[in-house]
């Protein structure tokens, strides 16, 4: 690097140094903080009734190592990263590294500046999203991302927060996003306000060389047991999500969602024909975390879900059972059973069942 090239770097360093020192003197609550976590997941999946070409491809083994950390300096500077190293055996064995998030952030007064790959969730749905323009794609049959492999978008983002108001501006690039054809360079805006219990957002933006879009979201808790949420968006056509959650007195929760997206590439699933017209989907999940009412079952969680396409009457039944062991280990079983005619969206899935068994270590 030439001397001329070094001048702006030195100036920037000097400004940052002075700024940090001034902040130190003003702020008696200086706080450095470091958090880390490490997960290791062994996941073994068996496909039942598959039409896969070889016996080996009916079995899939995945070993995932997931370190993450966040360093917060002086309540002002942030450095954070979540990566996944995966070894996958499905006939052959492949290794690869996935960067879910890695970003640097700076907070100045009411502003937060972020550069890097970020996981952003602007939509309100559990299984679907109409407005999540920067969100990683949701998988309705695995809405909690069992293996933690959803990755963020590469972006520059500025957030401003004051009282109940918050404004975010983001520019996300498609350059490093892999092979997803629907991911384009995107400029997006979000205004969020919490008023009278309504957590409400207005979202707008444009895919460069693509569509413009706009949407609104809300969440609201009603009484002791009900939560309602919804997204409405316009991207060539209207997309609607409406959902709710009910909590029973003994802790069981029921989540229901109805999602109606237009049949355009942005919303269309890979298995759906472009000529299929608008589709509507439902998601129903019933379950309970910690079955503590049953003696000896305190460490167990159990959920059953159904994802359905209302047009072709196909769907997937999903069962999730988890059990914790002490402070570091847990295990799970995740089962999916598609149903419907062979030409329907979910009925065309080339297996009758898929069952995953997993062990997770967390530190």
């Amino acid at each position, binding site marked *: 690097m030439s001397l001329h090239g070094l001048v702006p770097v030195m100036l920037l360093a000097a400004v940052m140094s002075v700024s940090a020192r001034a902040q130190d003197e003003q702020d008696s609550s200086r*706080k450095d*903080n470091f958090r880390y976590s490490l997960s290791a997941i062994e996941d073994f999946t068996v496909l039942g009734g598959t039409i896969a070409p070889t016996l080996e491809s009916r079995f899939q083994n995945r070993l995932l190592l997931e370190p993450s950390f966040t360093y917060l300096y002086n*309540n002002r500077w942030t450095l954070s990263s979540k990566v996944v190293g995966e070894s996958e055996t499905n006939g052959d064995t492949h290794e690869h590294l996935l960067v879910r998030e890695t970003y640097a952030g700076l*907070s100045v007064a009411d502003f937060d500046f972020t550069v890097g790959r970020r996981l952003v969730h602007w939509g309100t749905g559990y299984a679907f999203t109409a407005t999540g323009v920067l969100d990683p794609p949701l998988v309705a049959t695995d809405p909690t991302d069992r293996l933690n492999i959803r990755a963020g978008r590469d972006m520059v983002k500025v957030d401003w927060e004051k009282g109940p108001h918050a404004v975010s501006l983001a520019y996300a690039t498609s350059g490093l996003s892999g092979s997803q054809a629907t991911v384009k360079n995107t400029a997006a805006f979000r205004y969020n306000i919490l008023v009278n219990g309504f*957590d409400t957002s207005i979202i707008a933006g444009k895919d460069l060389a693509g569509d413009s879009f706009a949407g609104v979201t809300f*969440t609201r808790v009603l*009484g002791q047991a009900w939560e309602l949420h919804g997204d409405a968006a316009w991207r060539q056509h209207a997309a609607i999500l409406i959902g709710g*959650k009910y909590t029973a*007195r003994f802790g069981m929760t029921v989540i229901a969602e109805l999602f109606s997206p237009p049949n355009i590439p942005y919303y269309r699933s890979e298995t759906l024909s472009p000529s299929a017209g608008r589709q509507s989907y439902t998601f129903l999940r019933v379950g309970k975390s910690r079955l503590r009412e049953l003696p000896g079952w305190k460490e167990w969680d159990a959920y059953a879900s159904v994802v359905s396409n209302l047009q072709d009457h196909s769907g997937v039944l999903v069962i999730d059972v988890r059990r914790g062991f002490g402070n570091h280990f*847990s295990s799970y079983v995740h089962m999916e059973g598609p149903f419907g005619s062979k030409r329907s969206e979910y009925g065309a899935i080339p297996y009758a069942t898929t069952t995953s068994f997993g062990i997770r270590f967390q530190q």
Partner: protein
Amino acid sequence: MFNLTQVSLSFRPGFKSAMLLSGLLLSSSIAFAAEDAQAMLEQSDAFRNGWSSYVLRVNIKNFEEGKSDEEKLYEVSKKGTEKTYVEFLSPRDKGRHLLMLGDDMWVYLPDTSRPVRITPLERLSGDASSGDVARTNYAADYNAKFVRTEKVGSLDCNLLELTAKRKGSTYQRILYWLRASDERPIKAEFYLTSGKQIKSATFDEFVQVRGKTLLRRMTLYDQIRKNSHSVLEYSDFAPRELPDKLFYQGRSDRF
């Protein structure tokens, strides 16, 4: 303070006057009792909330049939009576956060990376619920009524009946025993809207921190599953100026 004795001496009543006076005295004393009860409650809250803005850690050990079967660690950041942010620090829960803003509550799950609204009933789940960790300003959540004085062991106590005054209150009703000499919490019973007792608590140990007496250890007993209890240990108390943006519900860049 208004002196009831002086008022009564200023009358030379007939029967009607006596009735009027009795009514006046009764309503006055009820009003005073209510005010006093609320003041007692505020005083007792100071044993659990040392400063207007602070951070502390809570270690919860759950016991099943007398044996410790689970341990959880939380860092609680609290600003005023309306803003609480709880970070889950135990290995299996790392990445989880809980945010309380008045009556509204969100949980952040690492697998969804987004805030999920939770209902008041969801706050009750668990041996020690999120409400037990996050909502410790009872004077902001409950109306207090003085019931009577009574002995708990060898201690003279004021018994208060607390009734939820807002949606965000964790319990519908609490019976709360406070040491008469300084309103230090001694024990409590927690009830649901149905009237069923769900938990009870003893406030076991206090500690001196920067000139304040603060709760160090309490035990929560499950009244539905009688063989289960949780011990909550509080530590690392520190007054701290907390930025408002820590309590913004839309933030996803949490630890």
